[in-house]
Structure formats: structure tokens, C-alpha cells
């Protein structure tokens, strides 16, 4: 396993000008490592819909990469999105899931199926073009360039340890994040 913050540093180094949609736990850590916060869409409270927001953005902006930083509990709330995404098959979507097997934001209660469930298998049989699973930082580092350059949709399960300390909600309001995002997207599209 690897610390999710370390994994996010690796992703950030290879992010380029990709849009990033982050939710729940990933929000707090991504804001520490992001080098392009304007193109970050941090969102909480949409009941696991980061993957669906990412799909919409990937369809709307086919010339831009869209990275989703999802949680395992979040994805379980919206599992059908795996099938919807695979069916629309956006080549520019990279869907990371941080598997810590707990609901970190509520203090570490186990997710249903913890330890039995295989997220990479779910994505594979939903029809994602590429699927990956990384258990240690070295293998993530060695493969990140391939992952980021594959014709998607690409699914990446990152195994991280269970965390029980609650991550803070974003301090910036959602409406501010949205207007900052729209402006940054407009700038980066020209």
C-alpha cells in the first residue's frame, strides 16, 4: 500500500493541463499538491457523482484530459457510472479510485464489501478500455506515464491504508470554485 498523498504527488507531476475532478478525501490532499488549481473541480456532497461530472466534462472537452480522483465509498454510491462511462467511452477520461476500504469522512467505518470487492474487476467488466491496480508507490511511478497516455477510458485503483482522521471539507465555496474553474478553462482553451 502507499499513502494517498504520495500517490497524488505522482499524479500531479504528470497532470499537465488536465482537468481534475476530486471528491471527498482526495479533495483535501489534492489541494496540497495541485500545481494548476484553476482547473481543479473540488466537490463534496454530490453522493458519489465525481465520476459522472468527469464524464460530462470529458464529453464536453474532448481535446482535454479529464482526471477523476474518486473514493471507494463514493464510487459504491454510483457504481452504475462505470457502465455509463464505458458505454460512452471517452478516450480522454482517467478515473482514479483510492481504495482505503473505509468511509474516511465519517471516521473510518468499513465500506460494504471491504476486502472482498475488486474495483479493477468491476471496471474491467463494465467495459473500461484500460484497467490498472497499484499496491505500491514504485509501481505507480513506473507506470504513470503509460496510464496517462493511454486511449481511455482508463481506470486506476490505488490501494491506500485505511484512514480514520476526518478530512476537512474545502474551505472555498463551491460557487467560487465553479467560477474560478470556468475562467481557467476558458483561458486554457485559447
Amino acid at each position, binding site marked *: 500500500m502507499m499513502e494517498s498523498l504520495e500517490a497524488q504527488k505522482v499524479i500531479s507531476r504528470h497532470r499537465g493541463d488536465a482537468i481534475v475532478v476530486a471528491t471527498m478525501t482526495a479533495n483535501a490532499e489534492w489541494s496540497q499538491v495541485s500545481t494548476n488549481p484553476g482547473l481543479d473541480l473540488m466537490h463534496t456532497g454530490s453522493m458519489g457523482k465525481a465520476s459522472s461530472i468527469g464524464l460530462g466534462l470529458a*464529453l464536453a472537452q474532448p481535446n482535454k484530459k479529464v482526471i477523476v480522483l474518486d473514493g471507494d465509498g463514493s464510487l459504491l454510491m454510483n457504481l*452504475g457510472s462505470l457502465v455509463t462511462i464505458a458505454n460512452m467511452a471517452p478516450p480522454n477520461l482517467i478515473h482514479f479510485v483510492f481504495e482505503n476500504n473505509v468511509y474516511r469522512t465519517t471516521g473510518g467505518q468499513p465500506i460494504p464489501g471491504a476486502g472482498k470487492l475488486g474495483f479493477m474487476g468491476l471496471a474491467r467488466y463494465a467495459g473500461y478500455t484500460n484497467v490498472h491496480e497499484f499496491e505500491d508507490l514504485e509501481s505507480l511511478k513506473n507506470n504513470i506515464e503509460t496510464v496517462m497516455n493511454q486511449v481511455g477510458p482508463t481506470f486506476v485503483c490505488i490501494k491506500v491504508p485505511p484512514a480514520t482522521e476526518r478530512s476537512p471539507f474545502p474551505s472555498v465555496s463551491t460557487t467560487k470554485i*465553479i467560477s474560478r474553474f470556468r475562467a481557467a478553462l476558458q483561458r486554457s482553451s485559447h
Partner: protein
Amino acid sequence: MTTNSTPLTARRVLDELKKCGITHIIWLPDSEAVFMYEAMISQHELTLVPICREGEAIAIAAGLMLGGKEPVVLHQNTGFFESGDSIRGLALNLRLPLLLLIGYRGWRRDAPMTDSAGIFTEPILDAWGIKHYLVETDQDVPIISRGYREAHESNNPVAILIGKEYA
């Protein structure tokens, strides 16, 4: 429906959506809107996004709108209930001018509503401050453009209730 009106046709609805500049239809089949299926798949101007469950639709629409596109969501009032928290957390909180085309299960003109889906639809739309209009015939179709315009003027979702079941 008056004696001079003609039943709602898919072609008229799609033409009206195209007139508004709609780019994507995010949908899940339902009894009221399924009359549009053949017409939707036989055209290429509007991209269809089929979903597995209605709550996905609002989030996909949010992503499309933030990326500069103009989607509509097409599903039944039961799906509207299902997608409730996404409507609250995304469409309403982010002030998205999203057009919701909602199949009005339980709606029968001049007949009492016995299906609770029909009974709860308008009160819930009202509670959330979402304007809504009924479309039953081809003569009603311009209401779709009005709803689209009002959504953009108010930066709020607007619902078009499709009162046509099993046609």
C-alpha cells in the same frame, strides 16, 4: 387536449430542442418519453447519453455545462425523485440553467391522480423553486423554448412535464 390539437410527436420535440441549441440528451427510457426513442436514434445532431440510474444524469449534465455544452435531461418523474439530491446539490446549488424533460407518470387530464408519482411531482418542484410547464400536444411544444429561455434568464433549472403516456 382540445379537439384542434395534435398529439405530441417526437420530431417536433427534437426540432424544438435543436432550435434551443441543445447538444446532448441524457436519458433513461420511461413510458411517457419512449415515443421519442426511434426519432432520437435516427438523428445525429444531438448526442444521446444513456444512463443506468437517473441520479447520474444531473451530474453528467453539470459536467457538460461546465465544459460549455447545452444538455437536457429526459426521464420520468420517478427518476426525478431518484435524482433528488443531485438536483439539490448540483443543479440548484451551482445555479445551472438546466432543462429537465420529465415524463409525467400519473398525469391524466381531467382525471383524479391515483398514482403517488403524479401527486407528488408538482409540489416537490414547487418546494424546490423549479418552474414547470405541461406539454401534451404539438401545439404546446414552443413551451420548451420558453422553459429553456427562462432557465437561462434565472440561472435555475426549469422542468417540462410531458403528459403523454403509452402513446
